[in-house]
């Protein structure tokens, strides 16, 4: 059964039976997975052919259209699995800062926390979480910082932005939340730093992206857990 499943040779009914079995049989799942991998490798020996003129442009146009329609859900989790694992592995690089900005020293933060506890103040200390803004090929071009507070805010700093983009282009700052919702804020090309308020809590931010007018991601930062 394994080769037939791996190569897609089964009829609909046969396939349904096979899949039902696979669901309950880890050994067969492993067998099919290994055979499917080999079947894919075989395709590397396949024929090449030159596509019709303009094929690449049509693919890009179609991708742009699909991305514009689906980006809110798909960009958050896109990226090959191995790269997502690497991003998670880099978590320690993300800086969680307590109050910090105005205090500037750990000792001062400790004093503040101690004071809050002593006063019985249940209000959580404001925090800031920072992640690198990277391009699709992993180049770090800036940072995004999610500040808690009322309202929570996102600040994005992309040094060199002015020189990297055309003056008359349209860009958006997209903040995507864990529930899949997304807010878009138009950003100009004459600044390198932006700050936008959030509708919900700082802990709900999944990603922050800079998109061009066609919806392509120029750079992004991943905050998802």
């Amino acid at each position, binding site marked *: 059964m*394994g*080769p*037939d499943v*791996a*190569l*897609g*040779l089964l009829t609909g009914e046969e396939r349904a039976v096979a899949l039902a079995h696979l669901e309950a049989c880890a050994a067969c*799942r*492993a067998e099919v*997975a*290994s*055979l499917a*991998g*080999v*079947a*894919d*490798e*075989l*395709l*590397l*020996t*396949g*024929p*090449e*052919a*030159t*596509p019709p003129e303009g*094929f*690449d442009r*049509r*693919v*890009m146009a*179609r*991708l742009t259209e*699909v*991305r514009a329609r*689906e*980006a809110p859900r*798909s*960009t958050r*989790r*896109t*990226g*090959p*699995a*191995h*790269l*997502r694992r690497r991003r998670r592995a880099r978590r320690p690089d993300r800086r969680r800062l307590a109050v910090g900005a105005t205090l500037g020293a750990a000792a001062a933060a400790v004093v503040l926390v101690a004071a809050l506890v002593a006063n019985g103040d249940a209000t959580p200390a404001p925090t800031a979480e920072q992640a690198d803004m990277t*391009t*699709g*090929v*992993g180049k770090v071009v800036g940072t995004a910082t999610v500040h808690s507070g009322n309202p929570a805010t996102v600040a994005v700093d992309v040094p060199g932005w002015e020189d990297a983009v055309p003056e008359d282009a349209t860009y958006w700052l997209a903040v995507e939340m864990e529930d899949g919702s997304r807010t878009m804020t138009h950003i100009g090309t004459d600044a390198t730093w932006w700050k936008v308020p959030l509708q919900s809590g700082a802990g709900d931010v999944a990603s922050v992206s800079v*998109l*061009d007018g*066609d*919806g*392509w*991601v*120029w750079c*992004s930062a991943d905050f998802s857990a």
Partner: protein
Amino acid sequence: MWEVSDEALFAGYASGDPEAAAQFVDRFQRRVFGLALAIVRVPVDAEEVAQEAFVRAWRFAASFDERRGSVAAWLLGITRNVALDSVRGRGRRPEPVGDPVPDLAVDPLDVAAAIERRADARRVAELMRALPDPQRRALVAVTLWGLSTREVSEMAGIPQGTVKTRVRLALRKLRDEMGAPIS
């Protein structure tokens, strides 16, 4: 000249980097379109299949795992599935039009020889060459040309069960020789 790896390029493609996307499409379009054309046989349908394959590669990018195989193999696997769906949706395959694509009369070793220059295909091509001829032909027919075992049976004039047996033996033999990818 330094060249971005397939995996790095795909990471850019998946994340929406326009430059990486253009390069990714440029790098793989001949292979994707070539496989699509081999299976669906009609250029206009092959383009539709190839376009859809690139879209699905973006849409399902998160499912790619380099531990299971290369980007090229994964992308071509998507292409084959889209092409088979297209063919099955229309019933029997039309006769080839325009530039002829290889059929069972063409020795698959010619194909393997033609792609010897592709480093990523060399290993599997060598292993295919070592297969018994009937097994190799049956396997090539159902993978690269997307034929059903029934179609192979009719074209080759042998029982369908024999075709299935040859395909199964060939695929298992290749897997054993290549070493099973992790599951």
